[in-house]
């Protein structure tokens, strides 16, 4: 049975089981209740015009494609406990470039228990088989542990993504808090000439109340990175100091800076770098909010054996909700990749540096049916590189999702 068919059945079963359970069914758009659990099946259809479907520098081939997807989110809430998950299966079908058609599927499970006064625990697990963008990427994050281990998780090629993580946090005293987290990320590419990557990251974060509204934060990170290209591993260390607001005002902020060191496999440069990570949200009014963030790190390359990439990424965005049913948002993301060692172009070693920029404008409209949502989205991305040819790509999408 095809994965898509399997998930279509799952969608149907979820709907039917919810109805058969019949215990306190909510209105469409507010979920199905089976005992204390909520099930929210959804289906989605979107059409996209792509100005450069191959992301090619020359001979651009515009095309249109249809994305279809079914999914199910579920959750259970109780005193001190949250448990939830999300599964989806989808397909993309191009009008002309049909050899680029693909299917994707994935799941995320998340458990949270406790409170920081005693002990707060968070455990996540996710597997996704994806191509192009990864729709569950933002959900599969462990609180406090940044995904600065395998940035290529976002590379747009056929890949399996495995993630597991946990976080334990406690306010040891009125003024002192401690978080300890671990995150595993594994990326397995379908293309034989890309190197699979694995990363283990352990992080400890100490927070001390500095003022009524602010904590001083010290973060230490140890990472171990493994590539299928080599038998020896890379080690990554980072330490940063910063501040974190306590979330009681219009602006929430967490920012820190320090140093990081990357000890790559034999033959690779061992270097220390400036390190930073931060994010901020400013809620100007009930309807308008702004987001700003950025981080840096060093990761092994999936393209070159024995090479690493120092990356910087910064994003800024705004969201405006003029009415309860309409949401508008705009955001820009920039990223720079600097390879630690020169790369061979032909037989000539060259320094490689890539600059990428992505822009997204989006409107979401919740229809009077409440269970149906319409959206329109425009994205533009461009990449300049000292080694590979540059490209740009524009996508215009209109879509609809129906979520019970």
């Amino acid at each position, binding site marked *: 049975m095809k994965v898509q068919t399997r998930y279509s059945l799952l969608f149907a079963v979820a709907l039917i089981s919810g109805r058969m359970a019949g215990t*306190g069914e909510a209105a469409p758009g*507010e*979920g199905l209740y089976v005992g*204390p659990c909520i099930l*929210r099946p*959804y289906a989605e259809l979107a059409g996209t015009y792509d100005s450069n479907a*191959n992301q090619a520098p020359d001979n651009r081939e515009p095309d249109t494609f249809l*994305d279809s997807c079914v*999914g199910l*989110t*579920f*959750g*259970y*809430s109780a*005193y*001190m406990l*949250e448990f939830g998950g999300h599964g989806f299966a989808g397909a993309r079908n191009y009008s002309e470039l049909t050899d680029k058609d693909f299917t994707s599927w994935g799941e995320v499970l998340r458990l949270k228990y406790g*409170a920081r*006064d005693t*002990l707060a625990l968070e455990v996540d697990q996710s597997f996704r088989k994806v191509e*192009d*963008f*990864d*729709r569950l990427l*933002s959900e599969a994050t462990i609180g406090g542990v940044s*995904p600065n281990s395998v940035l*290529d998780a*976002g*590379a*747009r*090629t056929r890949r399996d993504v495995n993630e597991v993580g946990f976080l*334990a946090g*406690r306010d*040891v005293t009125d003024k002192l808090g*401690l978080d*300890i987290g*671990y995150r595993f990320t594994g990326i397995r590419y379908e*293309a034989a000439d890309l190197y699979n990557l694995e990363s283990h990251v352990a992080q400890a974060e100490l927070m001390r109340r500095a003022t009524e509204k602010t904590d001083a934060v010290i973060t230490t990170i140890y990472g171990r990175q493994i590539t299928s290209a080599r038998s020896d591993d890379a080690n990554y260390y980072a330490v940063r100091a910063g501040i974190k607001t*306590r*979330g009681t005002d219009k602006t929430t902020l967490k920012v820190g800076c320090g140093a990081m060191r990357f000890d790559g496999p034999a033959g690779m440069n061992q270097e220390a770098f400036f390190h930073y990570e931060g994010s901020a*949200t400013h*809620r100007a009014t*009930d309807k308008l*909010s702004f*987001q700003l*963030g950025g981080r840096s790190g060093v990761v092994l390359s999936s393209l070159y054996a024995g090479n690493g990439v120092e990356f910087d*990424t910064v994003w800024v965005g705004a969201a405006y909700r003029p009415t309860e049913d309409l949401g508008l948002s705009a955001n820009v*993301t920039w*990223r720079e*990749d600097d390879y630690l060692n020169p790369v061979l172009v032909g037989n000539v070693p060259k320094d490689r540096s890539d*600059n*990428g*920029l992505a822009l*997204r404008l*989006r409107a*979401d409209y919740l229809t009077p049916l409440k269970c149906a949502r319409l959206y329109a989205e425009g994205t533009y*991305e461009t990449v300049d*590189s000292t080694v590979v040819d*540059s490209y740009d790509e524009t996508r215009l999408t209109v*879509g609809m999702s129906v979520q019970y």
Partner: protein
Amino acid sequence: MKRIVSIAAAVLVTALTGSAEFTKPSDARLEQAAATPAQIAELLSDASSEQAAEVVKAVILKILANHRGDTAAFQPGGTVESLIAGVIRHALSALPPDQWKTFASAMGTVCGNSPVINANRGVVSFIQGSLATAGGNVGVALAQSFAVGFTAAATPAGSVGVQGQNQNQAPPPLRPPVATPYRGQR
């Protein structure tokens, strides 16, 4: 690596053996408070802001479960809004005013994480409105803090379409593009 694991284990043991004065309310007490909101004050004795928010969340979950399927109860001005308003009002009266802001912020976090509460936009509005009303002049700030709690830290992502379980979050920024010849350029 072994050293990090050892330190982590030691901290976890210390954390687990710690004690707090606050006593977890029984399921029956939560149920009673869901029917009679005034009773929630007794459940918040010695509670920190976060513990109080967890208790209030648990009572709201009981209220939602008790009235599930009753469409009229979920309408603005209906039984559910009235009970939630009572729970918030009595919870605030049981907490010292200097704790209100952190309580509101904690409410934002725990409710933002709850897939059951998040599923119903009306309930989220009831909670926000109740905080604003019960907080008097501080109410606007309380509601603001509460709303901020729903906004998770931005993480670059590339999701298109359904934006996860939280209907109140703005879409995250796009994942930045990668300049490697991954797909079409090969």
